[in-house]
């Protein structure tokens, strides 16, 4: 029996393999997927072999197995990493990697003890991942798999086809030549990052409903698009979609009030109407119409959690933004509009050792601040103000 293939899924997987992870001939490829994403994992495997992968290793995870551990397992199980998983994690150095998102049961863990849910993380594996990230030894990418549960979260009904259409639009799969479309898209974002780097802004100023906020930038940090390079120089796009140019801000300099413009899905809850009051780089007060406690406890989790680690600019040409959909999935929602993250900074934007300029924390939470009414200006060291975004339109010459 031959396998009946879904042509759109195969093209999607090919895009993730060729543009996203940019799998190199002869590379081992590691795929991490939820079992509900098996059709995508299979298509990624086929596409990886077609791209010349040496061996494709797929590890499936099952949220119900995790739930059983959190609910019924002993304390030590929560943070345990099996020895073989560490060995597999180490083997990612020099390899390509793909992971899938799109939670089929976003509420699955909501009735469990929140403290245990928060602790349930394979610590040793996360540590290996962080080290590989810093050493830039893996070309990797994440893509989402439309499924009924996720569609229900987004649309209130399991309209998978509608979600697929949105995903195909956001990832440029609707283009006649998606690979070429991505090349053009990344070149445009790279140009924006280069522009911002030339202008050498000292700070950004955000002004809009519920927002009057200034955040300092660093002379040592570059603006980037999500066109990453391994230490061996292999280009890859770690997120599909991506619409942002971003940098790591000065963790010591932020002042004012900033309000979120979209709901945020965080640790199994939805945060609405978030407002952060910031003094001398720290979030000092958290307000929200819904879910403020989750943000408060996250910000209290360590020293760096109340400082900022990322500023990202996205304009109205964003395909994610154009859909008007809240996806309840950070991979998508952070690309809808401008966002800021509290928590750890992104090391890639520094050329050398960042030292104190890089915020250190165990958390990194992006939240959306962009909307038509939001004005974003760049402030230069000598006191000039340069408009960057007005009415979600990019103001610098393109």
């Amino acid at each position: 029996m031959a396998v009946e293939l879904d042509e759109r899924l195969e093209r999607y997987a090919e895009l993730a393999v060729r543009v996203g992870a940019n799998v190199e001939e002869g590379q081992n490829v590691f795929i991490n997927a939820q079992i509900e994403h098996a059709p995508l994992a299979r298509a990624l495997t086929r596409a990886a072999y077609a791209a010349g992968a040496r061996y494709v290793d797929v590890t499936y995870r099952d949220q119900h197995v995790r739930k059983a551990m959190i609910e019924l397992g002993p304390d030590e199980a929560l943070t345990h990493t099996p020895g073989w998983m560490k060995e597999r994690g180490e083997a990612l150095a020099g390899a390509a990697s793909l992971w899938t998102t799109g939670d089929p049961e976003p509420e699955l863990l909501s009735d469990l003890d929140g403290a245990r849910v928060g602790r349930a993380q394979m610590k040793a594996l996360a540590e290996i991942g962080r080290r590989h990230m810093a050493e830039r030894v893996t070309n990797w990418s994440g893509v989402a798999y439309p499924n009924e549960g996720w569609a229900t979260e987004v649309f209130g009904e399991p309209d998978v086809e509608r979600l697929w259409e949105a995903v195909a639009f956001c990832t440029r799969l609707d283009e006649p030549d998606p690979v070429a479309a991505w090349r053009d898209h990344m070149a445009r974002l790279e140009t924006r990052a280069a522009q911002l780097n030339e202008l050498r802004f000292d700070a950004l100023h955000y002004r809009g409903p519920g927002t009057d906020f200034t955040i300092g930038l660093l002379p040592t940090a570059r603006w980037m698009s999500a066109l990453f390079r391994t230490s061996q120089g292999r280009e890859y796009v770690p997120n599909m979609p991506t619409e942002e140019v971003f940098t790591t801000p000065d963790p010591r300099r932020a002042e004012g009030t900033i309000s979120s413009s979209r709901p945020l899905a965080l640790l199994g809850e939805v945060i609405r109407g978030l407002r952060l009051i910031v003094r001398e780089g720290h979030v000092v007060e958290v307000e929200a119409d819904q879910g403020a406690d989750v943000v408060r406890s996250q910000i209290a989790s360590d020293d760096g959690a109340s400082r900022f680690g990322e500023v990202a600019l996205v304009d109205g040409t964003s395909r994610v933004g154009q859909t008007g959909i809240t996806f309840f999935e950070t991979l998508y929602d952070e690309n809808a509009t401008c966002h800021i993250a509290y928590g750890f900074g992104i090391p890639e934007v520094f050329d050398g050792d960042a030292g104190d300029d890089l915020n250190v924390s165990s958390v990194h939470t992006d939240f959306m601040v962009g909307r038509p009414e939001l004005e974003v200006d760049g402030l230069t060291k000598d006191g000039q103000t340069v408009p960057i975004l007005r009415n979600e339109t990019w103001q610098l010459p393109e």
Partner: protein
Amino acid sequence: VTDAGSPEARRTREERYAELAVHVGANVQAGQLVDVIARVEHAPVVRAVTREAYRAGASYVDVYYTDQHIRRALIEHAADELLSWTPPWLLSRAKEVGRERAAVVALTGDAEPDLLADLPGERVGRARMLEIAEESNRQINERLNNWTVIGVPNEGWAQQMFGEPDLDRLWKAVEYTVRLDEDDPVAAWRAHVERIGERARSLNDLQLDSIHFTGPGTDLRVGLLPESRWQGVESHTAQGIPYVANMPTEEVFTTPDLRRTEGHVRSTRPLALYGRIVKGLEMRFEGGRIVDVKADEGAEVIEGQLETDDTAAYLGEIALVDGTSRIGKTGLTFFDTLFDENATCHIAYGSAYAEAVEGGVIEGVNVSTVHTDFMVGGAEIEVDAITRDGTALPLLRNDVWQL
């Protein structure tokens, strides 16, 4: 009568099955690592097994899902030398299971039995992780783990058996064979362990030299070792933990002397092997070795397998099953050895179970990387036991146990 609101009625069939697999099958001990190996299609039972294992006190439940579509892509695209390659992290995982003396729950039940049928048979046959096969052979022979294998009903498997995806019918058949239809399945298994165990004890008391099968197309003598020990249903780890390695199981079995099988045998049921069905299999033995293979269908699959290594063509198991077998009573062919081998008497070429020999892997005990059971019993087959003084005792007549 079960009240609809009672805890019993609220339990799903997956939960009832998992309880049996964890407590009777693998017999998970408090503090044990539990290894679960399953296909992605088995998730509903995997999840129930995981929950039950934690309730039984598991220190950690490590679930490894495999996916035949990923295997298919490997067979289609990967270089020759990678087909039987074991990724080092998976070998480490297998070794950890032995070192930690983990409990193991393995799930079978093919959701797409024809998935690999259009691929070159030679590559399909080679696509298995050899180092893991050797490691798990070693662990079984050293009796490190309490383990069990259960079948997970799914639509594809039901389609193969019934010609339609009648999942409920397959669930009912499986529940019957594993005694989940009983009010108290755990008690039913205890009685079953006792009854088949008694059979094994009585065979051991007889001090047998060989077993003789006669019937249409069959006249086969299978020689035993003086150290051969009959076993049934319940096994024990080296540390003494009892477990039931297969659910269902109906057989008493032992390890024959690999040098002393003579005569010819005709298989009485179709055999599912590597995605093919072998029908009308006939074999001739000389000095323990299979010297001739014929079949109406699929002989080449058997011949290919017998060439895997030097010892593949010698027997490693002989098992006796009578007409009380629940699998036999269903009249169904499951196309899954876990079930079909329990329908009737069977023998296996390839590796032996060292546990069924006093002294383990001694001379005359077969060691191979293959082990294929095929069915040789039925109402028309007479089975006699030959004692060491040459007396013939009837064991089976018309599928009825004679002792």
